Structure formats: C-alpha cells, structure tokens
C-alpha cells in the first residue's frame, strides 16, 4: 500500500485537523524529531542510490506501523510543486519542500496530523501537529514511532552531541517544539518586545509565520526552543509550555483591558476592526498577508464581542485556507496568478458571510 496517484490534498482533507480548531489564543503547536541513520552520510552528501535505499527502508516500516492510522507514502518525484507547497503550509514547515525529488519522500497519516519527511534535512524528520496543548502525549507518540523504527535501523548518536543532525543547532535531543500564539492584544498594548526579551533569556526564540522575527503576519507568533543540546526533552516541553501558559494569560489580560478601554468610546481600535471586516467582506482581490492581518483583527473582535455570527474554528481554518497552495488545491483548477487574489476574495466572502459587526 503505497503509491500516490491520490493527491495529498484530498488525502489530508479527509480529517483536516485545522478545520476543527476552536482555539482563540494558543492556536496550535508542532513538534519535530530529527534523526539520521548510522553509517550513511547525511542526505546532503548522499548519493541518489543510497537515498532511495533509505526511502525504501524507512517507508516500508513506517507504512505498516501500528500506531499510524492509514499512512500513505508520497515520493518526492511524484508530487507536483503545488502539492509540496501545500504540505509546507499544512505542516507549518520551517523549510521548503521544493527540492524533494527522487530519493526524497513523505509519509502522511490520514489524520492530517503526522508527517514523516525522508531525506529532506535529515534522513528522518518526524513531525506532528497538536491542537490540544497536549505536547507530552504528542511527543510520546513520535518517540514511540522513532523507537519502533530503531528495531530495524540504528540512529547516529554520540554521547557528546546526542542525536546527530545535519544542522548542528538541532543536535542533542533533535527535538524542535514550535508554539503558535495569536497575540494581537500584546502587540497593540506594546508589550510584545518585553515578552520576547524575557523568553529569549529562557532559551525560546520567536518569529513570524514566514520565519522573519520582525514581521508578525496576522499577529501570529511562532515560539520555538532555542536549545536542543544540553537539555532534556522534558526541559524543552516544560519551559515552552510554561511560557505559553503565561503568555495566554497576559494576552487575555491585554484583551480585557482593550475591551474595557475601547468598548464605550469612539476608538481607533474599533475603526481598525471595522475596516478589517470591510476589507475581508468587500475586497475584489486580496493578497494573503493582507487577508491574514485583517483576519487577526476580526478574530480579536470575535473574542471580545465586537463581531459575531462566526466562530474561531471558521477563522482559524481560513488562516490556512486563504494561503496560496491551500486555495489552489481547493479550487482544483489551474488559474492565472492574477485570478488567485480575486478567487481568494470570493472564497473569504463566502466563508465569512454570516459574520456581523456589532460596533
């Protein structure tokens, strides 16, 4: 049970976890375990033949792994550029999958939550999406998959550097945890920088959705552990969880404060939420970044009672669904690039139709 005429978009939309995400502030998390196999050079210095061997070795075992539900193998050479981009968007990957070709592969689980990348950065990168603030169980599951593969392969490991990864800044545990928080309140009340500084000292870095720490698209901030070496897996999870819990509280405080301050006033913030609503409901064409920034304000308005008729689930899904590859896959048609921003507008109108502005 492997190959893939079946495209990954339809496969992943069976149970797309992003469609059922009711979170207001802690939007979700991703966990990745990076591993290489002993006795093989890392993928960047490995011949195509050997990379194919690794794909075959790892995929055979992963496909029949009992804890994965209906996993499917997608070989790099069989995926279109659009499908690769779709996977990057869906799994919020920090790197591009465009170079995936012969000798690279992906294994997806039907749940749409689990992805194994073979020979991309490392021989094996196991990732999972988590929408329930359930970092420990998600990691245990990844470790479980990693351990059962360990019966068939040995991982590159040294007592000094831990698990050896192609990127030395990920050696040690090889574990990267990223938490996505929607922090519009802290941004508007200008308290983000203070938080960034504080948590940087605790070994947590931040960036925007595109990886640029200075551009917070849609006010979504990705917090990631800076240390992978010299810490335990538990240290990583607990420090990032502790940070996220505190920031969620701080964000709630900021939102309450903004609501109290602006609720009964003629205010600039109300104007911004109204304009965001106007842009989303009435634009003829719209680019992703503009849409995400406007949706951020609408999501905030929804949370403090300035907008109703829609849910966080709808808006959270739209955060994904309006991005390029998601949108193109959704329409399942080739369209000229200048049409895409028009289609995006139409799609947003349709999804947000029930939304009402109460201010």
């Amino acid at each position, binding site marked *: 049970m492997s190959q893939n005429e079946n495209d990954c978009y339809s496969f992943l939309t069976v149970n797309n976890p992003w469609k059922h995400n009711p979170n207001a502030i802690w939007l979700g998390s991703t966990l990745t375990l990076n591993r290489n196999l002993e006795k093989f050079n890392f993928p960047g210095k490995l011949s195509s033949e050997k990379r194919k061997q690794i794909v075959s070795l790892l995929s055979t075992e992963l496909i029949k792994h009992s804890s994965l539900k209906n996993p499917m193998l997608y070989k790099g050479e069989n995926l279109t550029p659009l499908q690769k981009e779709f996977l990057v968007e869906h799994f919020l990957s920090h790197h591009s999958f465009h170079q995936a070709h012969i000798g690279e592969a992906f294994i997806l689980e039907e749940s749409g939550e689990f992805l194994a990348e073979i020979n991309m950065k490392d021989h094996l990168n196991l990732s999972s999406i988590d929408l329930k603030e359930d970092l420990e169980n998600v990691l245990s599951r990844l*470790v479980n998959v990693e351990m059962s593969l360990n019966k068939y392969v*040995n991982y590159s490991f040294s007592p000094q550097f831990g698990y050896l*990864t192609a990127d*030395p800044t990920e050696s*040690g545990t090889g574990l990267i945890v990223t938490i996505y928080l929607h922090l519009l309140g802290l941004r508007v009340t200008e308290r983000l920088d203070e938080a960034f500084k504080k948590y940087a000292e605790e070994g947590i870095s931040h960036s925007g959705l595109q990886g640029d720490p200075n551009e917070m698209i849609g006010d979504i901030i990705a917090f990631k552990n800076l240390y992978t*070496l010299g*810490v*335990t*897996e538990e240290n990583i999870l607990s420090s990032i969880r502790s940070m996220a819990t505190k920031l969620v*509280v701080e964000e709630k405080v900021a939102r309450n404060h903004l609501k109290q301050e602006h609720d009964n006033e003629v205010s600039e913030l109300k104007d911004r939420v109204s304009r965001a609503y106007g842009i989303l409901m009435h634009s003829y064409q719209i680019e992703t970044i503009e849409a995400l920034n406007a949706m951020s304000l609408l999501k905030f308005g929804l949370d403090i009672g300035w907008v109703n008729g829609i849910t966080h689930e709808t808006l959270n899904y739209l955060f994904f669904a309006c991005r390029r590859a998601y949108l193109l896959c959704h329409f399942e048609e080739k369209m000229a690039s200048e049409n895409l921003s028009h289609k995006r507008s139409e799609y947003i109108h349709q999804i947000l139709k029930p939304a009402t502005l109460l201010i």
Partner: protein
Amino acid sequence: MLEKKPERHYSDRPLECGECKKPIAVRYTEIVGNNIVDITMCSDCPELQRRLYGTSLKDYIQSQAGVGAALECGNCGTTLEEVKRGNRLGCSECYNVFADVLLNELQAAGRLTPRITAGRKGLPAHIGRAPGETIALNPSSRLLALDEALNETIKREDYEQAAWLRDQIKALTEKSDLPSQPPETDKGEGENESKRK
C-alpha cells in the same frame, strides 16, 4: 490600469543571510563609483567581517580557529569553511572532526545552554534520551504550568485571571487521576490559595 503583481507566497525580501542560512541581521550596501552592491548578512557572518575589515574569509577562519583552516572531514569532505558558514554537516563523522569548532559556533550563536557554557570541559553536553530509552514525561506538566501562571497572577493581584486559571486546574484535576496539587512546584505566595481551588 490595475497593476498586475505576480502572486507571491512569501515576501520577496530574503530572509536568510546571502552567505549562510542564518537569519538576517545586517543589510550592507557598498557604493563604489557607479556600482552598488547590496548584501544581506547574518550578524556573525564571516563575509561581513571581510567586507568591514577587509580580512579574507580564510584569514578570518584562521584567526578564529588558529591553525587547521584547511581542515576537512575525511569521510564526507565537508570543510571547516563550510562549517563556519553554518552550512549543514555532511555526516556523523563531522561531529568528531569539528567537535570544538561546533561547540564554539553553537556558543557564539547562543544555542548552548548556560549550563554547558559554564562547564564546557565537563562534556558530554547531551543529557536528553539516548536511542532505545523510553521517554518519561511528567504527566502533570500542564498542571505545573497552570499553577506557575496562577502564582504569578496572584502576585499581580489579578483575581479575574486567577479565577480562570483555577477553573482550568479544577477541570484538569477532575478529569484525570492526577493529584490535585502538583508535586514540587515553586513555593510561591499563591500556593495555599491554589490548594483551596
């Protein structure tokens, strides 16, 4: 006439150093006569050193690493220069060949915990799990985090958020068999309050 912009998934500004793959810290513009060179670099880019101080990359590496600038991994051919630039490593053997350089680079990039930096000689640096080991994660970590946040809100006298956090804690403890009071937490002022729900 409406302008037709090509659809771009990502902004057209480069996000990575033009030389290595680290995040950009510096935009460097050099104007010589009519020539304008525009480069984006990371903060510790050897290329930046070269542009600013005129030292060549080799000199810079030599000055950083002492002798052995021509060092390369005998197994995969990854050179010291590549390691210095932050390129990916080629194989496990690179970690033996470049061990000291890697630790220096990781430290310079702020990717070593203070614990390792303080006791660098006391290697091994890795303290996480090893292959074959099962992972034991504290099942009450969510509770610990909530409790920690609760203590902070009580210190700030923010009782509204404290009440919300207590509800979360209550919901969690009722749902599971976990002890109602998480073990070994910081003994903050709010602890007694949190015990009382």
